């Protein structure tokens, strides 16, 4: 019997039966998922739905990185957190929610800010990385780290009433720096905390990130690599556009690059982007 051959327990067969029934998914894809590990960086607006759906679908090991605590002004979009967790670490709250919907998978809590000093060690433990952060230096740091470690990166962003989504560093495709070799001016780096965001917009993008991570982990379909999804909530328009491939001149993933783990560790991403990794760490410094 195919299910037994893939090591699915009777409980798993029942839990995931709607996946197993699908001819284009089935036992093989579910088995791939159960053997995979995915790290979600950020348990905020994007991370909330991404984590819920990744936990529900049966990713074998699901990691969560976040150093922040739940606040009341997160609740309009960060639907993984409940009011009862206000003031507590987002990682703890998100992990509890994931466990409550799927007690059969492994949830790993990384209650720390991702930094060059710990990123290599944390990311190396996972097959796939989901960037659900909210600032430019983190996006450069995570992409560079994924290139150095050879991990595919599912990258989503949302602000105001717009969202963007693509997959970086996947099977010879471009990395974040291939698209954006030079950091934008700091005045162009708005955060949700400064400029606002309609809560359901990161909800939609976060779900799409979960889907792309599931496709890569289960090895089905065509991931959104070399393409970018652009979402405009107000006019209900979605474009999926063709973007450049890997750049031979890319400083991090190009032909003549010398970028390695040591250079990654030594790079000051806040200086590089002239922008802080985290507003709450900044708040702490000011206190």
């Amino acid at each position, binding site marked *: 019997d195919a299910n037994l051959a893939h090591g699915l327990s009777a409980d798993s067969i029942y839990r995931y039966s709607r996946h197993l029934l699908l001819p284009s998914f089935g036992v093989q894809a579910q088995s791939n998922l159960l053997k995979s590990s995915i790290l979600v960086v*950020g348990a*905020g*607006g*994007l*991370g909330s739905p991404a984590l819920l759906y990744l936990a529900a679908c049966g990713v074998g090991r699901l990691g969560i990185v976040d150093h922040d605590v739940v606040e009341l002004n997160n609740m309009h979009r960060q639907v993984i957190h409940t009011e009862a967790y206000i003031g507590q670490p987002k990682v703890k709250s998100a992990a509890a929610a994931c466990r409550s919907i799927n007690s059969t998978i492994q949830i790993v809590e990384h209650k720390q800010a991702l930094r060059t000093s710990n990123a290599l060690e944390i990311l190396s433990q996972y097959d796939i990385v989901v960037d*659900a*952060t*909210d*600032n*430019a230096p983190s*996006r450069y740091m995570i992409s560079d780290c994924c290139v150095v470690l050879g991990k595919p990166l599912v990258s*989503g*962003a*949302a*602000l*105001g009433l*717009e*969202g*963007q989504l693509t997959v970086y560093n996947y099977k010879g495709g471009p990395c974040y720096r291939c*698209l*954006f*070799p*030079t*950091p*934008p*001016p700091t*005045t*162009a*780096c*708005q*955060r*949700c905390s400064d*400029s606002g*965001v309609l809560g359901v917009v*990161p909800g939609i993008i976060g779900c799409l990130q979960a889907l792309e991570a599931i496709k890569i982990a289960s090895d089905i379909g065509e991931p959104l690599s070399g393409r*970018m999804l*652009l979402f*405009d909530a107000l*006019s209900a328009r979605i*474009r*999926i*556009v*063709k*973007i*450049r491939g890997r750049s031979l001149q890319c400083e991090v993933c190009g032909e003549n690059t010398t970028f390695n783990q040591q250079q990654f560790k030594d790079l000051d991403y806040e200086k590089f982007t002239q922008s802080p990794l985290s507003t709450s760490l900044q708040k702490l410094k000011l206190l």
Partner: protein
Amino acid sequence: MHLTLEFGGGLELLCESVKFHNVNVDLPKGADKLSMRDLLAWVRTNLIKERPEMFMKGESVRPGVLVLVNDCDWELSGQLDTTLEEKDVVVFISTLHGG
């Protein structure tokens, strides 16, 4: 030449918050075609109402702006040298970092 221009990711704020622009751009004097280089100069003169440094740097767009010609990254069609044709759709979109 009739073109559709679209601004997104916050760049519309530089054009009085209007995202879609149906425009008619004349060919430069003596030229027989319109390039993206020409179009950028035209946009800067005719559409950008404030903070032009948030849109351009030198003769190209500023870092962090993606340019798409008919849903395709302009890096694939020659960037500034891309030749535009009647009814082309050009999108300028600023990359987002929020979540």
